[in-house]
């Protein structure tokens, strides 16, 4: 049962990645693209968690933690650039 649920979750998460990627390619303005990047990052954190579950190594969760942290900083930097000041 656990395997079935995790496989379903994996399929749904991959579908969500594809949909957010479509928004990223289509998105008319830069802000739309940054939102798509943010959502892609947030979606890929559980994806990394599921990969960690499948391979049974807990260090993969550390990668997810670092990714969440740094992508947040990246989004803040893009937003500051759009504001017009990056000092």
């Amino acid at each position, binding site marked *: 049962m656990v395997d079935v649920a995790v*496989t379903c979750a*994996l*399929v749904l998460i*991959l579908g969500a*990645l*594809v949909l957010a*990627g479509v928004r*990223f*390619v289509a998105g*008319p*303005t*830069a*802000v739309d*693209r*940054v939102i*798509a*990047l943010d959502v*892609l*990052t947030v979606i*890929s954190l559980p*994806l*990394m968690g599921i*990969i960690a579950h*499948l*391979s049974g*190594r807990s*260090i*993969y969760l*550390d*990668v997810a933690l*670092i*990714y969440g942290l*740094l*992508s947040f*900083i*990246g989004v803040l*930097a*893009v937003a*500051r*650039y*759009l504001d*017009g*000041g*990056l000092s």
Partner: protein
Amino acid sequence: METAIVLVAGSGMLAGALVAVLGKKTLTAVIAAGVVSLLASVLYLLLSAPDVAMTEAAIGSGLTTIIFLFVLHRIRSMGLLQEENESLDQERVDGT
């Protein structure tokens, strides 16, 4: 199961790289580079290389984005490169 992840992440990387190369605006290319490094980091995890994935996260998502944006900002505020400057200003207002 892993094949599906590889297929989705790989085609996503391809799409991001195409957006980065073909897109008209510089800012779009910078954001697209972020997407490429995100999916590359997922692929490194599948190749069981968490250390490389961490480095990719730090360099690709954090450092390059911030440095690129900083340089774009400096170019814009220095007032050199007049045409580039105007197009960058326009880019900010359009947001495209």
